[in-house]
């Protein structure tokens, strides 16, 4: 048992460059210490009881179920990532793990060494299509690792939507899960990306979602986190071209003993860029959430606008919410605001609804729906919106 060079052997038939990269990442994993409580990023995020080695059996050696929209325009490449590494090395090799770095921490390294399922989507310059691509990542059994990786390359002025769904067959499964995504947006590209994480309630989940935006491109990213007993997600947008625009939204609903951690970055590397982040979450029972987000406006990034908000609805006295919205502004010609709130259901609203004869439980449910409602409307395509609505319905009960 355990992740070691021998366990790489099951990943047959990959090109040399990829095997080499995996070995490098594994060496990094072995070299890096476990994150300690004295690291700021891990101060409130306890991984001391997680031993990935006990879940070293890999699932999904052959990829995932891909829903191919009918009539994909020609030139679009959509296939399992490992297959694409073989068939299109010229597209995959220069990009894979260049946004999500394997040496970021131990878990990023492990993911880079052992990723299995996952998708590669390439949309050539100028190609647009409306029907979203759906990548479904199933885990069929517990006690193992499911580590899918998505790589999306959006050509100049392309336009499309993509949905990653991480689903467990058994809600009680244990195991190690990840779901990382790299998105390259070429000039003028418009990409909608949604990730819905609803793994089982006893897994450890780590994800890095990072996009790089070239000139005049637009990203609308939406993260939904529902599953896992432990879930740590980084959502990062690197605004590398003037006129680029990143909208980063998330909703999360933590209940039972769930622990969710979100670290976000809006990195304005050049001027005339815009980012807008809104993370909204509800906490029930004895769950805990940590949100820590940073807006960074670099030295020469004049005339940039950045917004960041984290809103937490705390529905129980045993739940714990942490919110750390940070700014690093190295330039004065910017507009930048951020805010965070942590609070219960508004008692005035509750009172109002109850005075209309609505029972307390129903009134609370309506207020929770209302809390999520304005973000739900921002999910960039209907299919995903309906899916998330249904999920929330079942949580709110």
């Amino acid at each position, binding site marked *: 048992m355990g992740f070691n060079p021998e366990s790489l052997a099951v990943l047959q038939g990959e090109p040399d460059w990829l095997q080499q990269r995996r070995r490098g990442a594994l060496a990094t994993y072995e070299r890096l210490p476990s994150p300690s409580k004295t690291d700021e990023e891990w101060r409130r995020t306890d991984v001391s009881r997680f031993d990935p080695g006990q879940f070293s059996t890999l699932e999904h050696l052959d990829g995932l179920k891909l829903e191919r929209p009918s009539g994909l325009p020609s030139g679009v490449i959509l296939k399992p990532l490992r297959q694409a590494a073989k068939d299109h090395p010229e597209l995959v090799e220069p990009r894979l793990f260049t946004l999500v770095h394997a040496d970021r921490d131990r878990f990023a390294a492990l993911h880079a060494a052992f990723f299995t399922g996952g998708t590669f989507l390439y949309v050539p310059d100028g190609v647009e299509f409306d029907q979203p691509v759906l990548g479904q990542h199933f885990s069929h059994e517990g006690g193992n690792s499911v580590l899918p990786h998505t790589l999306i390359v959006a050509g100049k002025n392309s336009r499309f939507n993509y949905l990653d769904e991480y689903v467990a067959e058994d809600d009680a499964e244990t195991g190690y899960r990840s779901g990382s995504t790299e998105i390259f947006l070429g000039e003028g590209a418009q990409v909608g990306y949604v990730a819905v994480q609803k793994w089982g309630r006893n897994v450890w989940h780590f994800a890095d979602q990072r996009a790089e935006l070239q000139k005049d491109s637009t990203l609308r990213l939406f993260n939904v986190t529902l599953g896992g007993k432990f879930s740590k997600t980084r959502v990062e947008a690197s605004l590398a071209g003037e006129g680029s625009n990143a909208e980063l939204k998330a909703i999360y609903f933590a209940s039972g003993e769930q622990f969710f951690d979100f670290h976000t970055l809006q990195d304005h590397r050049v001027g005339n860029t815009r980012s807008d982040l809104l993370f909204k979450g509800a906490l029930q029972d004895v769950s805990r959430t940590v949100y820590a987000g940073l807006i960074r406006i670099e030295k020469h990034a004049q005339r940039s606008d950045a917004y960041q908000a984290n809103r937490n609805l705390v529905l129980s006295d045993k739940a714990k919410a*942490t919110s750390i919205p940070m700014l690093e502004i190295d330039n004065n010609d910017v507009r*930048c605001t951020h805010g965070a709130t*942590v609070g219960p259901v508004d008692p005035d609203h509750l009172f109002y609804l109850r005075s209309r004869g609505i029972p307390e439980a129903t009134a609370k449910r309506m207020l929770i729906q209302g809390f999520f409602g304005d973000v739900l409307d921002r999910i960039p395509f209907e299919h995903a919106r309906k899916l998330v609505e249904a999920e929330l319905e079942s949580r709110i009960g």
Partner: protein
Amino acid sequence: MATVPKVEVGTDYKEKYGFFVPEEYVFKAKRGLNPDIVKEISWMKQEPEWMTKMRLRSLEIFRKKPMPTWGADLSVIDFENIFYYLKASDKQSKTWEDLPPDIKATYDRLGVPEAERKFLAGVSAQYESEVVYHSLQEELTKKGVIFTDTDSALRDHPDLFKEYFGTVIPPADNKFSALNTAVWSGGSFIYVPKGVRVDIPLQAYFRINAENMGQFERTLIICDEGSFVHYIEGCTAPIYTTDSLHSAVVEIIVKKNARCRYTTIQNWSTNVFNLVTKRAMAYGDATMEWVDGNLGSQITMKYPSVYLMEPGAKGDVLSVAFAGKGQHQDAGGKMIHVAPNTTSTITSKSISKGGGRTSYRGHIKIYPGANNCKSFVKCDALLLDDESRSDTYPYNDVDAENVTLGHEATVSKVSDEQLFYLMSRGIARAEAETMIVNGFIEPFTKELPLEYAVELNRLIQLEMEGSVG
């Protein structure tokens, strides 16, 4: 000048280390830090054994603790190149006239006597490491108020002192509280008895005046039930060519229904490292207010905090920071809600100019069971040019029910519209900018006694002029 117990510092001391005159030092410890220096300080002060032990233990903690890796860059501090104790005069002066002339001249420039004439209750002015001048209005003494320097308090009020010293900020709290506990000297000690209101602010002037000199004052304020006191600390320092370290610890206990306000205008010269730990405990229905202005120093790291221990306690921090060229103000506040029905606000206003950097760093913590708390943090940053930088690092931890916590921050520049408007009225650009900045920090200035408000506006004006061009 009379002498205190003589300490042999070596005959070549002066040649080797270059004593600075005209200041006349009765005793100046060697540079650097080791158990012998600490023992010497404690012996000089004729302290009880428990304090000597506590100092030595704190030194050990200081050595063990790593430098903070967050906040400002402190790697340039050379702890071995600092004097840890100086005593400028061997006796406590009772009246202004008793002060040695050179010290008096310094205070004259700082305006101490004038301030006293106006409304001082007492003066506890610090010159070098020891409080040398101290007076307290008779009226206050009659009320049982103790306002003295901390060294005298240890000697004259040993029980009261021992009961509270180090209980709000233990030596191990952080590297610099450990350092302070090892080598502390001077500072103010205030005790306000039950139900006593001190109607006029108590003030102390602090000053650094020697090259490579560390100043480690220690302040302890106890507001007994239902009492009120306003303490004002203002700092100025002449400019020297090498770095100085100022690392104070301020502990405050505000008991039931009492209120304490602590006002600081920090204007150290821009070669001073100002690393200060300030913390208060507020009990049932008590109010603690920190009014904290940081204009000077090369680096300041200071986050006044309030532990809200019992229901009804209230904490306020009002913080203003100005960072000009080469300065980094890393300031903010912390509110620790331990009990239910406690409230807090933090308002931070920061201004960066000429490549200066301001950081707001704060922590709101609501402990389990501290239900029905309210906390609101507002940070506004003004960046006056392209070279300057502003950061905001607010940490919010909510572990209780029915808590309302809000944080808002904005970063902006002086708007062209405002400037245009003022300049179209014939006001010069620099002056217009000063007016806008003074308007920006008005919520702070209006909380200050009038003469401080005037002084602050003048300081802002000087800062603005100094870095123009």
